[in-house]
Every structure is written in C-alpha cells, then in structure tokens.
C-alpha cells in the first residue's frame, strides 16, 4: 500500500507540472499579454517599456516559466500583474471560499442522492422511482444559471426569506454568512443529487440481484441490514467514482454560482484573470486546482481500498 501511495504521489506531481506547462504555453500563444491589456493608451512608449519591464514581460517565455516554476516550488507564486496582490494569498483565500460551499453542497447532495437512489432502487417501476427519476433528470438537464435565478426569484424576491446575493465570512457574521451560502449551495447540490441518485439506483439494482443478497435474506437478516450493510456497501465503488467526478466538476459549477451570487471564490478570480490575461493568477489558480484535483483523485483511489478490500490486494 505504501509503495502504491508513493507512486501515485510522484505521478501526481508530474501531472501538476505538465498541467502548468500546458497552461503557460496556451497563455503565451494567445495574442497579447497583460501589458497590452492594462498599460494605458496615453503613456509614452518609454513609459510603456518601463511598465513591461516591471511586470517581467521583457523576458523570454522560457525564462518566465523557469522563474515561475522555481519560485512556485518554494511557495512563491508571484504577484498579480494587474493588482500586485500576492497570488498565493489571493488564490488560497479564494479556494477556501469555494471549498466552503462546494464541500457542503457535495456532502449534503451525496447523502440525499444516496438516499434517493436507495428509495428508487427499492421501488423500481413504482411511483417513488418515477418521481425520483424525474427529479434526477431535471437536475442533470437544468442549467445551473437558470436554477440559480429561479431560486433567487422564489426565496429572495417572492418569499423574501434569503438574500439575493453576497458573501460574508462566517467569522465576521455567522448568521448572515450562512443565509448567503444557502442558495449557491442549493445550486451546486442539484446536479450532485441527480448524478449520485442515478448512479446509486443503478449500482443498487445491479447488486440487489446478486447471490449473496439472497443468501443474506435467507439467513434471516433484517432488511435494513441487508440493504445498508450488504447491498449499499458493495454498490459503493461506482458511487465513489461519481462522487470524485462531482468533486472535480464543482470548480466549474462554482464559477456560475460565484458569478451570479457575487462570491469571491476561485471561479470569480480565474474568470477575471483570464479576461485580464493576468498570467501569474492564471498559473497560480491552475496550480491550486490541479493539485486539488490530483489530491481528490488520490483520496478516491485510497478510499476504494477502504471500501473494497479486494482492491487493496490487487494494488
């Protein structure tokens, strides 16, 4: 197991390095740079040149990448070329905000999704199965921004129960912060519920037909124990895979939520960095996201071993 984890970690590091190189190359290929984006039009050519030098834009791309990567290894991601803000602080702060509501959305969504999936599987072909399937289909098909607007109109405007938008750190105002997080969390939860419901239902139905389930029932096991201990546990592997995929997709989904609800998370800063061609923030944000994805994948891989002992021996 130890060797397995170490090799996975090395693979992950190489993946992160490759991702940073690819992103840097793409940024370089794009026309222009942050200099042309932010240097005012009415400065003299000499002043523009000084500004470009201050931003390091007079160096070759190879030099810039090597400088960036050697600093990044030491934890220095440089400064935003647009605002001079420390990139590490900026990105880590934003990532914390994004993770706070995405993880809540995922965990709650997973619990609900697994519950729905079990109910649907046990009532196959009947009313509850149909209802839950429709909800899951809506969750998969409905665009996130549409759902967000509907929630705002219902809860914020018609019922006046929740704020329209905004973000307040929980440490500053706990109640206000929670109230502002509810709607964006619900927006992220819906596709998670949908995906995990469908995956759970499918995996449960497959497992319910297995011999060992019949054996467990014939031994007189309580139905709840049969479902939760035998069936669900054996169906968890594909559900775990779906959970990992949803965790990774959350960064993309969070961009929509953050944009509509005015949350200063990863999605917001990456979008701004792309529009501003702020290389350092783009690279720093990509680095954080790729590390997050790699760690999530690693975590899921390890969890396979926990959930299914057979996986440990094959590894």
């Amino acid at each position, binding site marked *: 197991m130890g060797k397995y984890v170490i090799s996975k970690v090395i693979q992950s590091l190489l993946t992160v390095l490759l991702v940073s190189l690819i992103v840097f190359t793409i940024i370089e290929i794009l*026309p*222009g740079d942050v200099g042309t984006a932010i240097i005012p*039009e009415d400065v003299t*050519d000499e002043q523009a040149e000084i500004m470009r030098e201050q931003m390091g834009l007079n160096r070759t791309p190879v030099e810039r990448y090597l400088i960036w990567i050697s600093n990044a290894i030491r934890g220095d991601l440089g400064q935003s070329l*647009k605002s001079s803000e420390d990139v590490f602080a900026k990105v880590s702060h934003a990532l914390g905000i994004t993770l706070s509501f995405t993880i809540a959305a995922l965990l709650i969504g997973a619990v609900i999704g697994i519950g729905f999936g079990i109910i649907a599987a046990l009532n196959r072909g009947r009313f509850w199965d149909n209802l839950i399937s429709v909800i899951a289909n809506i969750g998969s098909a409905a665009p996130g921004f549409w759902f967000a*607007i509907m929630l*705002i109109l219902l809860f914020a405007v*018609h019922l006046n129960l929740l*704020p329209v938008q905004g973000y307040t750190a929980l440490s500053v105002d706990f109640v206000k912060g929670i109230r502002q997080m509810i709607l964006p969390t619900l927006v992220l939860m819906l596709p998670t519920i949908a995906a995990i419901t469908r995956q759970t239902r499918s995996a449960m139905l497959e497992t319910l037909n297995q011999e060992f389930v019949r054996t467990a029932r014939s031994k007189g096991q309580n139905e709840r124990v049969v479902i939760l201990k035998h069936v669900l546990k054996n169906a968890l592997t594909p559900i775990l895979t779906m959970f990992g995929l949803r965790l990774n997709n959350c960064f993309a989904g969070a961009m929509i939520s953050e944009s509509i609800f*005015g949350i200063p998370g990863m999605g917001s800063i990456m979008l701004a960095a792309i529009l501003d061609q702020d290389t350092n923030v783009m690279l720093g944000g990509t680095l954080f996201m790729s590390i997050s994805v790699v760690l999530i994948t690693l975590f899921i891989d390890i969890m396979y071993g926990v959930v299914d002992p057979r996986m440990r021996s094959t590894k």
Partner: protein
Amino acid sequence: MKRIFSFVLVALIALSLFAGGASEAAAPKPAAAATESAPAKESKYGGTVHLAQEVFDYCVTLGTPFATTGQEQETAEKAIFDKLWVRGADGKIEMQLADSYTVSEDGLDYTFKLKQGIKFHDGSDFNADVVAWNWNKIKEYGFITNIAGAEVVDEYTVKISLTKPNPFFLMSNAARTPMYMCSKANYEKLGDASKTNPVGTGPFKFVSMEAGKSIKLEKNENYWRKDTDGSQLPYADALEITVISDPTVAAAALANGEIDAYIGTLTDLKGNLETYDISKFTIERGKVPTKVSGIRFMANSRNAKLFTDERLRKAVAYAIDAKAVADMYPDGEFVYTNQIALPGGLDYIENPVTYDYNPEKAKELLKEAGYPNGFDIDINIDTSANSQMLAELYQYYLGEVGIKVKIMSYANAERNKIQDSDDVKSQLLVSGTSITGDSANVWNNCSPSRKKWNNMLPFETEPGWVELWNKVSDCSKDINAAYKALAEYFAYAHEHCTQYLFLHEYKDIKYFTNKVDLQTEKVGDRWVDSALIYFK
C-alpha cells in the same frame, strides 16, 4: 396512470419555465430596505446606502490611487478620497482640496494654494508635503503623463511641474483616478498593505473589503465639505458597495430592497426591472458623454495609401447615415453629434463641416478618386457585441455605394499590435476615444509624436494639420486661446475628414429606488458622489 402523472409533471415544469419571472399581478412589494433605521422625512441624515456596480476589479489597489487607472473603483474612491480639483456640475474646473492656483508664464508650473485644517481619516494633516508626495508618486507610476515633479513651496503651497506645456492640464486630468490624494503617513506605516487599507480625506472611512466583491465604509464625522445649502456632508451613516454583474440578480436586489442604487452599463437591467413595478425606480443616464466614436481611417502613408486620399475618406462619411445609426439606440446610449465638443464648450464649433447622408455624393467622390466600382476593405473591430452591430450597419451602408467591407474582429491585445505595426494595411476602424467634457483628449491622442497613433492619421500628407496641432500646444497657459485653437484644429479635421466621429456615448446609467436621491445634477463627472446621497 404513470403516463398521466409524467405528463402532469412535465407540464408543470414547462409552466414554471415560462412563469419564472414575477408577473405584474404577482409583483412582490419591495421588502423593507436592508438598511438601518430610515431617517425621519424632515432630516436627510442617517441610514446605510447600499450601492451596487458591475465590476470592482481594482479594489486591491484602492489605497494607492496613484498606482492605478481602474475606473471600476471610482465610486469607492470618490467616497474615500478627494482631489485637488474636479469638474463641477457646470462643466468648469472647481477647486476641491485646493483653494486656488496660478500658472507660470511658460505654462510649465502650476502652483496650488491648499485648503487648511483638513485631516486624513488616520488623523494626519493634509498639507503641501503630502500633496507633493502624491504627485511624485503619480510621476513614478506614470498613469498621468507629462509630469516633471512636485515640490513644496510652503506648508500649504505646492508646485506641480510639467515636462511640456499643456493648456488642458486641469480639465483633462479632473476625472483621472490617480488624482485622488491618499495619506502619506498611512503608506509609510503600512507600505504595500496600504493598498487594501485606504486612507483619504473623503466623506467615508474604510471599514472592510472583500476583494473584488464588496466594500464597507462608515461616515467621516469630521468631513470638511458642505452641501451648496451649507449642510454638513455626508448625509448617510454608512456606505456599502457590492458587485453584481447579472441584470436579473441586480433587478431582484433592487426590487427586494437589498440595494438602493445600481451604477453601471447593464442596459438590459431596465427590461428586468419592468417585470417588477418600474414606477418604484428611477433610471438616469449620465449627462456627460464618456466617449466619442465612429469610424477611423487606418492609413499608414508609408505602406498603405488608400485613405491618404481625402475624397475616399469623405466618400465613406457620405455613405453612412450617421443619424439613422444613432436612432438605432432609442434609449440614448448613442446620440448623434456633429462634433466632439459639447454645446456651450469653449471648443464648440459653430456650423462645422458635416457629412449628411448622401450616397450619390459618395459614389461621385469614389469615381473622381478612380474607384467607380468601389473597393474592398477590412473593418477592424473589438470583440464587443456593440462593435459587431455597428460594423454590420457600416457594412450595409458602404456596400450600397460599392465599398465591400469584411468585418475583422480582434481581442484588444491583437488590435493594439495591428495599430502599432509598421506594415498595417489600409482599413477602417470602429473606434472611439474617451472624453471628459471637451475635445482636448482626442487632440492629445492625435499627437504627431506618438508612434502608436501614427497609423490612424494621415498626418504626413497633411502638414497644415500638424501645424494646427502644434498651435494648440503652443498656447501653454492661455486656456481661452488654447480652446480657440482647439476649435480651429477640429474645424480643419472636419473639413478634411481626418476621422469621422459622430456618436456621443452615454453608457453610464444609474438605477435607483425612489427611496434615495443621488443628487446627480450636482455632480460634474460620471461618478456618483456618495456624500450627496440621502434617503427621502
């Protein structure tokens, strides 16, 4: 049974898709504003004003205005800081932190007498030393050009020196971001951290900020400024500014009272507000145009000579129905103008040469210039939807006289590269220039010494035009003579159609509930003066 159930469910979902917005019958009452207790009607004082705007990207340099040109943060900066001078509601220069000024004979030195007894929010004094420090920082960062330096004359007198005379120095910089005076003591104490801890002399003090999303300010109890009727400013107890970039969300926030005013360019916000009770809101477009735009001619006379021929430039101008183009914007976003200057301005030209829609005249000029069947040309635009729409209109009109236009869209960075290139081919540009109440900025951007703009101007073949440009510059300290020369310069430009700018842009719109009064008639620029906002 299953099928009936599924059908009913699908029908309900479909219905909800169309009934998503609030109908007029079901229009909710705007909830009580999310503010602290509203003041009594007799008093303008009290309350927290909640403003929202479209973007707020530069907030992390809020505390060092000399280091940015970020106009997105102007609402916040105007609340926290003051300037030495501003553009008044009447369009003229008005002293703010300065009391008066004089200009040296050679037009290079501007000496300001400062107001006394003003303090920054951190208790430090506002004086000549601080002003000189700010202006030397401005010079260091270079976001206002042509500054040689600033020096202290005495405790409340400061001299700002230019590298070359500019008769429009005050007017062209009145609206510039770096003009805001920040606390030197704060910068020396916090260094880079002062960027996110702004300290000024303005009507509101900084409390906290969520970078790029929101900022909270509280009243400066010792603010030096009073309203025109002698009332102490500001009226509000606090100010909160948040970012909302979606019109549906902005409309919902206005409707439920979460925000009191929205400042931005979201034209579709009006459509969203109409789903609520629009009589509860006021929509005000800015009174000062922010840009003048139209068509420019890329004619690098070294490599591409097409538009060095004045007849071809005029043919393009006659071919376009400029008034009809402006009429495509009934909300007043674009307004037809026959010149850059505003009526009543010292640079306003009486009866300038205009190019009223005349396709026959256009064809005649094309024939005269040797293009009886027209020619093919690219039109260079940025990636905005508006530019695309304008380009398509021009494409239609020019096509009617035989000029076949191909629309080429570029990101700003690529566009700048093309404009700077020595090998650029002849093309048209859908383009505009920011203006601040007069035509001086457009004149300044046409400087013959600026390589960047060379490709857009056939100045090498128009020596008379260069002479007129220099005549404006030579006026140095005589502002009246400078504006007269400016009018002469642009009269020449109109006569020879060096560029065809015929649209004044009024992009800034303020949407606010009827509970607040923004008193925008007392403000001379496009930004909200939060010191003047009060609850009715």
